[in-house]
């Protein structure tokens, strides 16, 4: 039985051989993500506050770099809370979190490339239309 429990806790779909008891044991193994309800409620509250803040950025009418900085700060904080707590990334082993969280950095490289490209396109358009074709 001990072996059966260890089996099903490591391999979520291994419960088929053991029926109800082993399935019940699975739920209480360390592998699964169980956290106090308080944690979720606090994060939920913060997500509401941060969303309200980012909406206020527009409502108050900040412009320029202040607006963009605030938008990015609230966005990153919200995304971080969702991924870390709601998606349990903070509680996973680093082998998984780095495998999933590092590849999107490539998108940022792509962003940098396209910023140069878009600037260049805008410049050529201004030249073209500015001189009347």
């Amino acid at each position: 039985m001990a072996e059966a429990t260890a089996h099903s806790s490591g391999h979520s779909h291994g419960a088929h051989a053991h029926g109800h008891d082993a399935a019940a044991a699975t739920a209480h193994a360390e592998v699964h993500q169980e956290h106090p309800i308080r944690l979720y409620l606090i994060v939920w509250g913060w997500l509401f506050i941060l969303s309200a803040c980012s909406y206020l950025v527009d409502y108050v009418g900040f412009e320029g770099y202040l607006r963009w900085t605030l938008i990015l700060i609230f966005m990153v904080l919200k995304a971080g809370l969702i991924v870390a707590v709601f998606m349990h990334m903070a509680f996973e082993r680093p082998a998984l979190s780095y495998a999933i969280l590092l590849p999107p950095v490539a998108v940022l490289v792509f962003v940098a490339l396209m910023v140069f490209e878009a600037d260049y396109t805008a410049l050529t358009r201004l030249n073209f239309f500015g001189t009347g074709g």
Partner: protein
Amino acid sequence: MAETTLTNTTGIGPRPDGWRGIASDWSSDQRAFKNVSWGKAMMWIFLLSDTFIFGCFLLAYMSARMSTVVPWPNPSEVFSLHIGDVSVPLLLIAIMTFVLISSSGTMAMAVMQGYRRNRKMSAILMLATAALGATFVGMQAFEWTKLISEGVRPWGNPWGAEQFGATFFMITGFHGTHVTIGVIFLLIVARKVWRGDYDVGERGFFTSRRGNYESVEIMGLYWHFVDLVWVFIFAFFYLW
């Protein structure tokens, strides 16, 4: 049996954390994700690929907006609603944001209740999540209708750069599709939880595999991702 014995953490003893843990997990000539089931790992990898899709959409939007010489329509005015005589900027979008965040909260609770074996509570919370998701899609349909009636098309609009319509319909449409698929799967998983399929190891209709309550967590991963994408769309498309 031999293979599954290797894949559980209780059987392989304590493992190092941090960078040493990454190196030892990945170089162990076994599976890299020691205590994560294949279902959860594959959902994460799918979400990673979806991240690239939405990343490319937002990148295309950035390039279009940066390179156009025609002024971009002001989203604060385009998406404003008139309450009586007062024009409130981004009102509908703000409500949609709060609806989606609420649904993420109920989903997190549903995952927790599932692992605690509170079947009814877990199913009810998932149904609440699905209802909030459906509300979101409904409001998006209203928003699309309003914009289309005002003359926004993928090839033009009354206020400025023509790319506005194309990027708007593309990005919000793809996101709305994700929400819709999520609602459908939420209903399916909620029904299975309600009936106790995961307690008795009933075979699923789709893969014929026996599920367990981790399916709720995997469903939750997808749902939170939908919320996550909206965070970026809200920031870059509506607020920027």
